[in-house]
């Protein structure tokens, strides 16, 4: 009897602990930006911008970078004194279910418009919600077409997956980068699958020679020796890696151990590999990444951003940080032009006004000049390839 009581108490304690462990992780980061709202000037137009992204978890590098970039933009805009932005980012740990909760928390907080969800799988959930509830939604980096398909108020700052796939194939073909191409992709992930499909399609049109395609899943993302050996056997001189940086780091490591050194070609998910704790950056030497942003661009806008970012966060910004920064400025431009004022407009009216602006305006940002958006929510801008040299991205 006594034992049972002790055990019951113990179990209860365990539950409390594990709950505390869960919520501790997600509440903490969200709490900081809320304070910034307090400084807004009296009487000024205040716009509440909500966002969700992975601030912890395997994809945390993306969420953190977007948050950092967006905060710099918000600070700059608020200093200018006109419209005041109040920015709140909730943690979704790259998990669709948690993203749903994060979205609901933002609605309760009083969000006027949403700076999207950072990664694709959770963004599919939040974008569907924002479409149903009529919140304007601009995602910095969720590139899957499922995020925007059939939703008039959902816009992307990044390329869609089809664009990344076909863009990569075009780039490889135009620069004659490879005779034989191998692909390693994650076939239980919509991001990876989407890019791979359009890459293969475009490669077929351009006459690129794909010699082998290897896959892995969430359950088999540790051992890549067979996939690497098969690419090597097939004689591939370029391996296309449409995936996030975490499995990519293992592939680079294991290929190095196997003595295989083709050209590695990644897409935006590869961004972040250099800032992974303990990663030997020499393994990533020569990796080509297709990205619309490179930190060594010498325009004044970019140099200013890089300097501020380094001062505040001690790192060189990656593409996600630039996407976050651009998102805030694009929303600022549209909100100013449309005369958005949440004190007289509800979020549905704001949404309609913002959609009208986005489909007609031209925006100059860090990730591209003269960006325009189609009614389907896709952005048109030019992609660049960067190569990793001495642990930093260098334009090609």
């Amino acid at each position: 009897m006594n034992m049972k009581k002790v055990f019951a108490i113990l179990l209860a304690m365990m539950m409390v602990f594990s709950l505390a462990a869960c919520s501790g992780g997600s509440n903490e980061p969200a709490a900081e930006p809320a304070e910034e709202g307090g400084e807004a000037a009296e009487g000024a137009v205040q716009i509440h911008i909500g966002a969700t992204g992975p601030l912890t978890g395997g994809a945390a590098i993306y969420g953190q970078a977007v948050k950092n970039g967006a905060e710099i933009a918000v600070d700059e805009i608020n200093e200018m004194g006109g419209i005041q932005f109040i920015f709140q980012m909730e943690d979704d740990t790259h998990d669709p279910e948690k993203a749903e909760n994060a979205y609901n928390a933002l609605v309760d907080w009083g969000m006027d418009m949403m700076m999207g969800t950072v990664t694709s799988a959770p963004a599919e959930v939040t974008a569907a919600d924002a479409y149903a509830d009529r919140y304007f939604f601009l995602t910095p980096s969720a590139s899957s077409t499922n995020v925007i398909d059939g939703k008039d108020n959902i816009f992307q700052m990044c390329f869609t997956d089809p664009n990344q796939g076909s863009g990569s194939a075009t780039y490889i073909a135009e620069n004659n980068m490879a005779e034989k191409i191998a692909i390693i992709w994650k076939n239980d992930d919509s991001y990876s699958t989407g890019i791979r499909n359009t890459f293969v399609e475009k490669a077929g049109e351009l006459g690129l020679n794909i010699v082998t395609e290897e896959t892995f899943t969430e359950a088999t993302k540790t051992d890549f020796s067979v996939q690497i050996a098969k690419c090597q056997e097939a004689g591939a001189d370029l391996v296309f890696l449409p995936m996030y940086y975490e499995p990519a780091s293992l592939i680079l490591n294991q290929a190095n151990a196997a003595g295989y050194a083709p050209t590695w070609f990644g897409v935006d998910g590869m961004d972040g590999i250099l800032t992974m704790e303990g990663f030997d950056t020499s393994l990533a030497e020569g990796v080509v990444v297709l990205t619309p942003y490179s930190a060594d661009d010498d325009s004044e806008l970019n140099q200013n951003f890089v300097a501020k970012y380094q001062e505040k966060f001690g790192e060189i910004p990656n593409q996600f940080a630039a996407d976050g920064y651009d998102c805030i400025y694009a929303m600022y431009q549209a909100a100013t032009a449309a005369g958005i004022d949440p004190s007289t407009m509800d979020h549905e009216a704001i949404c309609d006004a913002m959609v009208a602006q986005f489909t007609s305006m031209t925006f100059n940002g860090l990730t591209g000049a003269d960006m325009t958006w189609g009614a389907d929510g896709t952005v048109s801008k030019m992609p660049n390839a960067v190569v990793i040299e001495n642990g930093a991205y260098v334009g090609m």
Partner: protein
Amino acid sequence: MSFLNYLVSGLSLGSVYAIIALGYTMVYGIAKMLNFAHGDVIMVGAYICFFAFTRYGLNPFISVILAMLVCTCLGIVIEKLAYKPLRQAPSLAVLITAIGVSYLLQNLALLFWSSNPKVFNPIIPNKSINLGGLTVSYITLLTILVCVAIMIVLTTFINKTKLGKAMRAVSEDKGAAQLMGIDVNTTISVTFAIGSGLAAIAGVLLCSAYPNLTPTTGSMPGIKAFTAAVFGGIGSIPGAFLGGLLLGIIENLAKAYISTQISDAIVFGVLIIVLLVKPAGLLGKPTREKV
């Protein structure tokens, strides 16, 4: 020649599964419970070694010993707090508790160490030797050697020592063992201590071979190793070894010669067939239902 290469990489993966499976099977064989938290103790071991070796630059040998000590203590604490009070409870209650402990460890790790992936520096140089076209990495060799050594030591320990005899007695019949003057609680605690110490070694080897470390690092290999233990006959130490190796080899050969897309389906398909033909697993003894 490439077949041999696939075989070796399968052996490498399989020997990691085998070391983890040894821990599962030993605890099951003696305490008659499935310790689902085993995979997470592995993760803790890997983190301890990561901090000692990569962060603070301790000697790799000392780091591994430290990880083993911490995991052994952790195993004893888990056993005392979570499992011991349930000695007389139905086995389902213990199973659920084990799953609870598994989540508790994962979430504590998330809280303390955050879920940003850490890159684990291998404890021995990340090099390989070339034997006439066949490349074998040092880690693979080390893993296989350690695995065989552990299996031999464990088998000898259980068959030859007094404590081993006590373990076998407890495994056969707890009540009768107690009547014969065996301290059942201590015996089971020692089993957990050994199992958790092994988990630390498994964690270090797992992360040396596949160097990404996150709070969920142990869970998938844990499940695969559990499969391996069932495959080889749960409770049987040579069975866990054999099951682990076979699982790794089947997985890699299926990836190499059939398709990377359906390798898991093939692995688990083989498991189902084996269990249909030999319900106790490859080396498991068919047991009579004891009442």
